[in-house]
Each structure stands twice: as C-alpha cells, then as structure tokens.
C-alpha cells in the first residue's frame, strides 16, 4: 500500500511541475515535461495496479512487472483506504478559475476535438460565459486567446502561446476578486475545484496543469485548452462548474453536479495523461495507448463523451477525484 501512497504523491508532484512549467520563463521545456509525464504515467500505473504494486517495481531482481492495466477502470472498488472522505471545500476552492473564455475561440478553432464534445456542453459554455468575469481574469484570458488564435493554424511552438505567462500575468490575475472567499459552502460535495481565484497561489496544488502541449490549437480545442488552468477538459464540462459555483452554488441537482465535477476533474487529468488515461475510464481493461504523449495529450475525442455519461465509471473515478483535490 505504501507504493500506492508513494505513487499518489509522485502524481501530485508531477502535476504540480507540469502546472508550474507553464509560467516558467523561457517557455515550456519540452524535454523536462516529457520526462515528468513519463514519471506521471509510471506512477499512475502503479497507483492503479493490483494491491501488490511492489511487483511493478521489480522487487525480486529481474522479475518483470505484471501489466498494471489489469483493472484500469477500478483502482479500488470504492475510495481507497484513507482517501474516502470527501475533500474539504477549501481544497476545491483552490482550483483557479479556468478558462471559460478561451473555450469559445478554441472550440471554434479546433473542431477536431471539439466535435466530440456533446452539444449540451458547448451550449453550457455559452451559458457560462454569460456570467460576468472578473476583469483581470478577462484581461488575462484575452491575452491567452490571441496567441492561441494566432497559432491555431500550426502545430509548431513549444509553448503554444499559453505556455508561458510571465509572472506579470499571474499578478494581473491575482486581484480578480476571486471566489476564494466565496468558495462552496461545506455542504457541496462536488464543488468544482476550479471555482477559486484564477490566481494560482499554490500552483502545486492547483488544478491539473495544462499538459505542456506543443500544439496550442489542440489544447484550446480540448476545451479548457492550454489556458493557465490548463485543464483541457474534453467537454466544457469543467468549464461550467467554475462559473456556476461562482454565481450560485449549485443546488438541487447537486448530485449530478457532483458527479460531473468528478468527471471534470478526471477530464482534466486526461489532458495530462492523454489517451493512455482512457484505459482508466473504460470499463474494460487494456486501457488506451501506452505511448508517451506527454505533450499533446489532447483528450481523445471519444473518451470525453463517455466520461460525461458513464456513471459506473464515475464511481470508479472517486480515488482520482480525491487525488486531484488533494493538490
């Protein structure tokens, strides 16, 4: 079990690094992010593997690791021991408000992934965007949009326009009157982690960092795309959440929201893990490609749609949502 904890810790650290890489001076370092994503993948495999993950690390010399993808869809039947309690709202509130705005242009720019987005979510984006935005957020995001549009036509560019935000831009977002104060009331189990202010005071704990995508177009298309929050949620599912929580804490259909929240979180992770993560979400074993997709983990089109609808899958996502929240 301690392997799982170790793996979990490494996942958290890795995601934090990927997130931080976006704001590093000089642009996203392709090499470093590739290595981090390799570690992330290894840690994820261990985390999801059998209760005897020690074998993965080849305890007895020379014994190859058993394929860790035995039950990709169910890391644990329920929340793993010690991770069962719902994450505290504070942690959730720490999610920076992600990019509802970039959604708009990015969806239009990258029909490739956007196509798979369920129509409902797309309109949801529209709704989301109706809400007032903190000016700072808006300003920051318009900066993001421009480069993304500019690079929509090309796959080049390590940072893809959203990669590097000089510290100044973070500062600009800081005083956004962010909902940190207005975080979800404790009763909201699934408060989207991303309600909190877009200023990322604790990058290591924030939402799944944007994959160090080299192709901004894909990032954007993925939904959240490469924005500072960088959670290329497949559908704009995650997008909806922050907005709503900002405006009015979800009431009523909260359970649905809760599960959608989790989906959103997972969807964010998908952007990082890429297609190989899809194995996690599918009920059947043998998940996704195992190749390294550190950079471009544009969510595979089909999976996002599945996530939104697949309740049994959502239940299995519990450990992951807690992992995310733990940031």
């Amino acid at each position, binding site marked *: 079990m301690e392997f799982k904890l170790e793996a979990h810790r490494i996942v958290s650290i890795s995601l934090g690094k990927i997130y931080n890489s976006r704001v590093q001076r000089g642009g996203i370092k392709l090499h470093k992010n590739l290595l981090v994503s390799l570690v992330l993948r290894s840690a994820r495999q261990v985390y999801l593997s059998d209760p005897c993950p020690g074998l993965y690390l080849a305890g007895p010399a020379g014994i190859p690791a058993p394929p860790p993808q035995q039950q990709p869809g169910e890391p644990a039947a329920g929340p793993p021991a010690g991770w069962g309690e719902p994450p505290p709202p504070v942690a959730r509130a720490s999610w920076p408000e992600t990019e509802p705005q970039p959604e708009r242009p990015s969806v239009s720019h990258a029909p490739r992934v956007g196509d798979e987005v369920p129509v409902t979510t797309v309109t949801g984006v529209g709704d989301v965007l109706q809400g007032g935005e903190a000016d700072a957020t808006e300003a920051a995001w318009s900066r993001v949009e421009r480069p993304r549009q500019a690079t929509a036509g090309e796959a080049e560019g*390590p940072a893809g326009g959203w990669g*590097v935000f000089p510290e100044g831009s973070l500062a600009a977002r800081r005083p956004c009157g962010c909902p940190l104060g207005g975080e979800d009331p404790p009763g909201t189990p699934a408060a989207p982690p991303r309600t909190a202010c877009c200023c990322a005071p604790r990058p290591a704990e924030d939402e799944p960092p944007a994959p160090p995508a080299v192709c901004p177009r894909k990032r954007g298309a993925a939904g959240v795309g490469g924005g500072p929050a960088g959670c290329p949620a497949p559908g704009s599912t995650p997008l909806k959440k922050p907005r709503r929580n900002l405006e009015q804490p979800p009431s009523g259909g909260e359970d649905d929201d809760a599960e959608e929240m989790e989906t959103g979180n997972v969807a964010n992770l998908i952007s990082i893990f890429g297609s190989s993560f899809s194995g996690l979400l599918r009920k059947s074993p043998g998940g996704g490609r195992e190749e390294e997709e550190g950079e471009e983990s544009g969510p595979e089109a089909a999976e996002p749609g599945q996530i939104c609808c697949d309740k049994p899958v959502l239940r299995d996502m519990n450990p992951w949502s807690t992992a995310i929240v733990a940031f």
Partner: protein
Amino acid sequence: ILSSSCHTEADIISTVEFNHTGELLATGDKGGRVVIFQREQESKNQVHRRGEYNVYSTFQSHEPEFDYLKSLEIEEKINKIRWLPQQNAAYFLLSTNDKTVKLWKVSERDKRPEGYNLKDEEGRLRDPATITTLRVPVLRPMDLMVEATPRRVFANAHTYHINSISVNSDYETYMSADDLRINLWNFEITNQSFNIVDIKPANMEELTEVITAAEFHPHHCNTFVYSSSKGTIRLCDMRASALCDRHTKFFEEPEDPSNRSFFSEIISSISDVKFSHSGRYIMTRDYLTVKVWDLNMENRPIETYQVHDYLRSKLCSLYENDCIFDKFECVWNGSDSVIMTGSYNNFFRMFDRNTKRDVTLEASRENSKPRAILKPRKVCVGGKRRKDEISVDSLDFSKKILHTAWHPSENIIAVAATNNLYIFQDKVN
C-alpha cells in the same frame, strides 16, 4: 534534501569553453553575457609562474526577447559557446541562447589613428575654412582595447529550445540542435539553414523522446552524433542522405531491470555527449553515470563510471526539488586519458581511464587559496562517517557543478560553480 540559492541569478554561469589553443576561456551566463579570459603570457622574469587567466573581454551577447506571436518569453541565458579555430588575428566564437545563434568577433585594437584633417582630437568636425594645411593621419599606440562585434545572427530556425551547437571540422559549417531538430548552417549564410535531423512525430501525442545533445566528429566533417532523452546515441553520416533521420549507428545499453523505478527514464536521459579528441570514442553523461563508448561497438559502452551512485536511493527527493533534471556536462582531457564531470556540493569528479582511479574534488573558496592543493573529498554512504568525509544528507544540492572545461593540451581545468569560476592547474611542472 534542501535546495536553496541566494545569489544574483543573472550571474550564474551556464557554459564554459576553452578555445582550440587554450589561450582563451569563455564563459556565458544566465544574464546573456559572455566573459572571455586570456592566459597571461609567461614572462621571462617569472619562468616558474604559470600563466594565469585574466579577464580579456566582456560583452552582452543575448538580450531577453519576447515572441509576441506565441506570447513567449525567450531567455537570454547562454546555453553554449563554441570557438572557431583561429585563422587570423581576431577570435571568433558562436554563442547561443534558446533560439538564436550569434557569431562574435573578438579583436584587439592597440593603435588608433591620429592627425585627421577634418576632425580634431576629440572627434569634433572642424570648419573646413580653417584648414590651411593637410597632413597624413598616423597610427599611434593606445591602450589595448578588446572589442566584440556580432558578425552574424542566425535566427528563426528553431521552434524548440536549442541545446547544442557544434562547429564542423570543415570550419565552414556548424550545426545547432534543439529538442526535435538539428540544422546545418553555413557561417556565411544567415537566412537559411539546412535541416538534417527531424524527429518530430506527425502527431505530437506520439512523442517519446527528444534530442538532448549533438556534436560533430572532430575529423570527419560528414559525421555527427546526437543523444536522446531515452539514453540512446545515434551516429549519422550526412553523405547517406539529405535528411539524416536514419542513423548509421545506434548506441544503446540494455536497461538493468533490477534498477527499475519511477525515475528510470529520467536518469537514463543523456545530458551531454562528447567525442574524444581522437574521434574514436564518445562519452555520454546521464544523471548518475558517465559512459565511454567505442564507435565500433553499439550494444554497450566500454566503460561506465559511477559519478554519485549514492543518489540512487534519493531519486524521489531529487525529483521533488527538480535536481533530477540537472544537466551535467562531461569533458575529456587533451590526451583522452582522463574524463571529468561535475556533481553536487560543488564536487567534481575525475576518472583516469588507464589506472581506473578516480578522485572527487571540491571547488570552493575555503579550499582554494591560490597555490593550494585540492584535497580529495569523499562522500560517506554508510553509517560510520569518518573525519573529513561528508554524509550524503549534508550535501548541498544547490551547489552543483554542471559545466566544466579542460584545456586542450595542458592540465588546466575550469570549473563553474553557480556564479563562480574556478581555474585549477596541475602543479606538476
């Protein structure tokens, strides 16, 4: 394992390189500056005093830039400096940051013209009406002035971050390598470069490795090698095809399964590759080892040296504090008999390939009074720490020696320790 730093970031030395004669030593730093040291000529009066290196020239090579299209800041940090062989009185070097390579000419001026007709001594124009006689300006000695001028700027050829430059033995071309591509340049042509390696996959999601270093063969102008983040080295022959995506030789050592961990891939990533002076061997550096490969044997290195194997059990902490991503360089001595590389705590290591002896030395002010002899250091791994040994947990991971250089023919080494440069000479006469 803590890692902290408290010094001016811009002064951190990011590259060190002797020129081909060893007379000059260039350093580049994070602030985009280049400082060149010149070795004192040994004077007749002090025959036994070995030439020391003094500052010869300092100039700003690169400035920070902002790519507005991609909303991307381009660091001014000098990633590499490479000297051209000297062909006249001036010195030429290439310096590069993440995106742009520049050719600098460093030349001396020790005379200046005096006696102009149309200008006075301060350079002010004279009224032609006041000129009644003509004279021929003459050159008079002046205090030595060293000027550096950018002669060529090779820009806009790299989408990713440049990690290496290498001057070809034909002295007409050089290559620059980024994470996914290698370009070949002619020194005279700045608006074009020739792409010779491209490992960018059509679908970036399939990216599995990047180029980490590249170098031309010292004698064969058609041959070069490049290393990858997967711990492999490819040797390419430019005569084989225009685009050298298919290697001529492929060097890879099978992984040791008993050492597998979360971080196996990171520590196998090669951070530096160097041809021996003879051209028969290549040396590679990964996080924990230095390896020497024979060009004629691709399936494993002929020598492997453990630089700091005691870190193997600390990889998780080193991952957390980012030290595991440190890119250490390695160098050969002039005769290819000794190799050197850096470590943490301002330690650096030398391995004698013939005697198989190795030594750990420290670059620090306390230990380096002029004329002092460096004392070998030892890291204690086990429980009992002897006097003078330092335990693994007391190593300072913010003091890392990533860049070192060895004089081409003498036993003089330059060691960059964060923002300090140490030059050590072998005391043997």
